């Protein structure tokens, strides 16, 4: 049984202009010890997908799925209290904005201890010890003295480490990190990513990494799911997707990254012309077809999902072709 099995997840948001199809028929699985990177640009639905798993969607958003199971527990039928018991205990989430994701009114120690004491019958001293231990584990020096500090007294990198430690307090089976490095300096980004990877291996958790940074994916992920306009366009093991990117959108994304040794100085990087389609109202066919240079009439019809190899699937009518080198 996979740790996480999402089958046909759909998220709709009613707006004044009509129904916004934010996420459309997304399916994936995740095993313990695996790292799944969900990749896509802003508005592709990748963050909403991760929030849907935690049942933290904005109240207007409507979540539907054929099934969504976490370690056998049906997340679609779980009640509010059941979800609260799962959250922070067995599934934890690390957010994008370390500057604003901690409560300014309480100390780091208080917020860390709270995460443990909500789910475990432990005393203050034990919660404090666990907090110090995890702060040290995430690479914070003088951990004990940090407990009495307030979030505004810490740098962005430190706050993100605190967030990670907070997510680990109950030793969850699944950690969802929503763009955990976006708001940080480049040097700190690498440190945080490696930390996440190491912790994921050490604790044997499932890790979902939501990101728009393909460099991040290549470094830490085992599986990748490429999202475009609320749909999953290509998914598979990192080696397969990066080695033989098959969906035109994935190919476009990879062309947009400079490759050391291959991209000559001054050579223009690949771009994808056009814009993400408006997701309000019904949308038939491939969402990428208005930006795809190989689009045909067949793209306006329903798009079949095709198996390209073990675990490697894409939603495109075209035959997979090799990326022009």
């Amino acid at each position, binding site marked *: 049984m996979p740790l996480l099995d999402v089958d046909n997840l759909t998220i709709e948001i009613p707006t004044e202009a009509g129904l916004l199809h934010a996420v459309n028929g997304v399916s994936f699985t995740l095993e313990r010890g695996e790292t799944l990177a969900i990749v896509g640009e802003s508005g592709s639905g990748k963050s909403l997908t991760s929030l849907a798993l*935690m049942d*933290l969607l904005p109240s207007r958003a409507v979540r539907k799925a054929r099934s969504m199971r976490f370690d056998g527990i049906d997340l679609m039928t779980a009640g509010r209290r059941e*979800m*609260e*018991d*799962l*959250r*922070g*205990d067995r599934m*934890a*989430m690390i*957010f994008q*904005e370390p500057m*604003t*994701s*901690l*409560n*300014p*009114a*309480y100390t780091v120690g208080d917020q860390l201890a*709270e*995460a443990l004491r*909500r*789910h475990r019958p432990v005393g203050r001293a034990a919660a404090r010890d666990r907090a110090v231990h995890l702060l040290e584990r995430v690479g914070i020096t003088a951990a004990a003295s940090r407990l009495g500090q*307030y979030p*505004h007294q810490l740098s962005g990198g430190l706050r993100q480490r605190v*967030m990670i430690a*907070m997510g680990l307090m109950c030793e969850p089976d699944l950690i969802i990190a929503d763009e955990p490095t976006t708001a940080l300096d480049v040097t700190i980004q690498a440190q945080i990513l490696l930390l996440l990877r190491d912790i994921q291996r050490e604790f044997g958790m499932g890790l979902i990494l939501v990101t728009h940074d393909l460099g991040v994916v290549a470094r830490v992920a085992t599986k990748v799911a490429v999202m475009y306009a609320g749909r999953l366009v290509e998914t598979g093991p990192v080696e397969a997707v990066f080695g033989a990117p098959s969906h035109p959108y994935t190919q476009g994304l990879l062309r947009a990254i400079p490759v050391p040794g291959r991209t000559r100085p001054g050579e223009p990087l690949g771009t994808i012309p056009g814009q993400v389609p408006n997701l309000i109202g019904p949308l038939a066919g491939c969402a990428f077809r208005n930006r795809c240079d190989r689009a045909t009439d067949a793209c306006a019809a329903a798009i079949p999902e095709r198996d390209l190899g073990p675990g490697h699937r894409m939603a495109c009518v075209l035959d997979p072709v090799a990326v022009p080198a």
Partner: protein
Amino acid sequence: MLAFLLRRLAVALSVVLTVSVIAFLLLHLSGDLATDLAGPEASPEQVARVRVEYGLDQPLVVQYGHWLAGAVQFDFGRSFYFRESVASLLGDRIPITLKLGAIALGLALLVAIPLGALAAVKRGSWFDRGALAFCALGQAVPTFWLGLSLIIVFAVNLRWLPVSGNATWSHYVLPSVALGWYAIPAVMRLTRNGMLDVMASDYIRTARAKGLRPHTVIFKHALRNAVVPVVALAAVQFGFMLGGSIVVEAVFSLQGLGQLAWEAIARKDFPVVQAIVMLLATIYILLTFLADLLNAWLDPRIRVA
């Protein structure tokens, strides 16, 4: 922190001094005090004698200096009308108005903060709309009418509470409701808006992601951040209540500062009016200072400044 306190103290003192000068000048520009004091029947000689007796013949600067020299020793002179020292006169009245104001503010906060928080959490529901309607209604009701209605319903018809006076704590219930009523809509709306902002913030999402129960999220994580602006408003409202309790004191026959101020102004009892103005100004400054301290405790980020 010490430098901060000293700076605040210096500002406070200069504000008090400025208020005293302005009040002094305004009172002396409002007409010839000696003529008023001597009475309409007095002869020019009598007026002249009164002028000398009360020191009103001296230059304004000298009069002000004289008053200030007394004031710093808490000697505010003698009342022209009550034939009593201003200090003891105020001493009798202050506790009544402070008690009334404190209970009124307490009641207002006790009602307004939970209502505002709940309205924000249940945004758009019938509860929220009802609370907002209640706000509009609350502000539209005049204090004297509310006071009289309360007396008719609870004192005259139901006989649950006394009509007027200040003998026991139960005498303060109706006046406090009448006085606190006015503060409820402003505090409630500010709490509601603050909660709406805070509930949409990232750290509330974090709190929910930890699996915290809704009451912990709302009361521990959200409300504490949402009430920071409410504290400053409450301090100002308390100042208004102390200075503006005059209508309520009149309706319920409470012999407080408001009544005293009203009588003193009507009788041109200059030392009393000046002392009351000074007292209210000082209370205002103290309240804003307390509000700053309370906010520094609520929001650690303010402590740096």
